[in-house]
């Protein structure tokens, strides 16, 4: 009975993992995700499966007892490789450039390679684990002083990177990913420690990996919902949510400003140079907005088409005007060597009363925008 239950739980974990893999392989995510998360899923499923096999084969004399050390080695290697691939995936979703940098990855991978070699050599020298005369497997000294620390190190680095990123709150849309990276690191380390502490009586490790990857997958999905795929800015859904939370909240120390902006003559860029050039222009504007408004802690969103929005907490209208000028200047500089002229019209409104509704707030900012557009012509 015990083995049935054990098998069921592990099988459940593996099936969930495989399901996510299939979703990524054949779904929409193919276009948006890198291979990194799929590697994580495959290695996790492998680690769980081998973990199960290892326990089933413990003490068995199958194939003259040859199978046990093989499976144990494979299990240790898969698990170590998995923690490295988690680390790489964390780099990817936290947008640290190392995840795709071969040289840096090779450097960060040195401990992994070292551990993998140790695992293989353990079959003969028993440094990390050894198999006794009755074919039962035991962990050895180096398991505790090298293998575990290396795996934990990768996980802890993930958490540290996520925390560091979270400190610099730039984009509202990314707050959940940072939290997810931190929490899956914590889940995995806890699960690993519990598993060793309980001496393999319960499959906590498999359950931990599964929960961590479900969390990562589900949060990554919800991130896609709140992100504009072209410019990677916040989208309209998130803008509304953010504004609602700001407007219904308590008194703010500063005044809440809403900026509405519009690309001038975007239509003609599209018509003359084609849609792909139009998309390029939008990405360029988004980059400028990120560079100018990001460090000032503003909330940036693409409302749709060529409309962008910024929400900022500023002291007074002079500060708002200064922000507009800064954006326009930066755009002028970046767009200097383009074939066409790229400029923005910006309108803004401040939220001086708490009783105003969201559409009214927008309408006031819109009015200013049209006044400016008229003046430009």
């Amino acid at each position: 009975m015990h083995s049935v239950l054990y098998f069921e739980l592990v099988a459940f974990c593996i099936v969930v993992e495989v399901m996510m893999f299939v979703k990524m392989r054949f779904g929409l995510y193919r276009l948006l995700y890198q291979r990194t998360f799929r590697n994580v899923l495959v290695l996790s499923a492998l680690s769980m499966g081998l973990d199960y096999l290892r326990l089933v084969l413990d003490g068995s004399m199958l194939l003259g007892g040859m199978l046990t050390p093989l499976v144990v080695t494979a299990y240790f290697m898969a698990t170590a490789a998995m923690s490295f691939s988690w680390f790489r995936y964390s780099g990817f979703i936290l947008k640290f450039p190392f995840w795709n940098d071969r040289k840096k990855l090779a450097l960060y991978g040195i401990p992994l390679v070292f551990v993998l070699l140790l695992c293989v050599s353990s079959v003969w020298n028993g440094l990390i684990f050894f198999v006794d005369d009755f074919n039962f497997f035991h962990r050895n000294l180096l398991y505790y002083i090298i293998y575990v620390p290396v795996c934990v190190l990768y996980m802890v680095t993930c958490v540290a990177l996520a925390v560091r990123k979270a400190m610099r709150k730039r984009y509202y849309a990314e707050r959940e990913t940072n939290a997810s990276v931190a929490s899956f690191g914590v889940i995995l380390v806890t699960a690993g420690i519990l598993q060793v502490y309980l001496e393999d009586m319960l499959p906590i490790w498999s359950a931990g990996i599964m929960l961590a990857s479900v969390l990562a997958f589900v949060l990554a999905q919800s991130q896609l919902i709140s992100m504009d795929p072209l410019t990677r800015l916040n989208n309209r859904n998130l803008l509304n949510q953010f504004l609602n939370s700001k407007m219904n909240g308590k008194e703010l120390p500063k005044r809440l400003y809403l900026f509405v902006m519009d690309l001038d003559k975007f239509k003609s860029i599209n018509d003359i140079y084609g849609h792909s050039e139009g998309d390029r222009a939008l990405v360029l504007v988004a980059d400028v907005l990120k560079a100018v408004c990001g460090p000032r802690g503003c909330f940036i969103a693409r409302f749709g088409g060529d409309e962008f929005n910024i929400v900022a907490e500023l002291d007074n209208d002079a500060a708002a005007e200064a922000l507009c000028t800064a954006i326009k200047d930066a755009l002028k500089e970046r767009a200097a060597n383009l074939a066409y002229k790229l400029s923005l019209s910006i309108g803004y409104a401040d939220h001086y009363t708490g009783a105003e509704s969201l559409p009214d707030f927008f309408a006031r900012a819109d009015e200013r925008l049209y006044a400016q557009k008229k003046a430009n012509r």
Partner: protein
Amino acid sequence: MENGLYIETNLVCVCILLILVYVTWRGVVRETEQLVFSNICFHSMLIFIIDVLWRICDGQRFPLAHTVNELLCAAYFIQAAVLGYYWLRYSYFLDPERSMGHGVKRFSFAIPMILLIVLNIASIWTGWVFYVDDNNMYHRGPLIYLQLALATSYLLITFVGAWLNLFSKHKYAQKSKLVAISVLGILPFIGGVAQLPLAGVPVFCVCVTFGLLIVFMENQHQLISIDPLTHLNNRNQLNYFLDAKLNSRNSEKHLVLFVMDLDYFKQINDKYGHMEGDRSLVILSNVLKRVLGPRGFFIARIGGDEFVTVAELDYMAKAEKVMALLHSALETESEKLPYKISLSIGYAECLPVGDTIPDLFGRADKELYKIKAQREDKR
């Protein structure tokens, strides 16, 4: 240790559901659907937790053990019935074209649940569905099969309803959602039935959790692939669809890509404001859905005022016919509005071999500009 495993499995399921509820609540779109979904998750978690407590108490000796065990038993079976009922309601909710009805009809759905609640409470004294012996061990009563049949009938109805619906529809964006609904019914059904011969193995909780996970992922997927304003497919989904179509061509039909552009959208926006501009987009997309939807065209909004349609046609002349239909439908629609809604459409046929998405788009775009230029000349 068996108990430990049993409890761990249940707790893992609770954790997964907690993650789903957390993400649902933190999510961007907090509509009724999300509320109903977290409601189901909540009811499922409740039954898992009752199960864990029951497992811990069964066969143990402590003050009032007998009563506690009986109560937990009854609570478990009642919760199973309640869960089934909510499950059915959720499946109706997910599919806007079906309705549970009102008054008597709606009430009749709840009758099996109410019957089971009464039966289970009575069982504490009569031992119909279950009884607890002097050693504080639970045993199945004579009516356990009635409990099982009634509770699982909800799930079976969910499954059959969604499945029947699946065959009567051919909308691309809806299809995977309907599959998910049917999975929602069949998985817990299998789990509930399998639980009977496999007493002591936590099958039910695993199946329920798996079903909910699939539905959740499908919901998220819908949000990612659908344009929130017009409820058409978005750019992501278009790329994915075209990719799939180009890789598996039906050689007897012509694969045609239409690129469409709302005329004078900028002017509508500038003159009447962005709210009115949005409304014109919604009106346009409704016309597209009405005219092209029944013909099995794939419709997407790829940003701003650009729409794209992909169709497999028997012969190319059909393309012009469909365009004429579209133009006349828009004209009738425009009569109710202060401004005119009209479309410029360019289309291109996919080459039999070696065509790519950018090439196809490029040709259709060129066609579109030609038409736009002609229109400008006429003015």
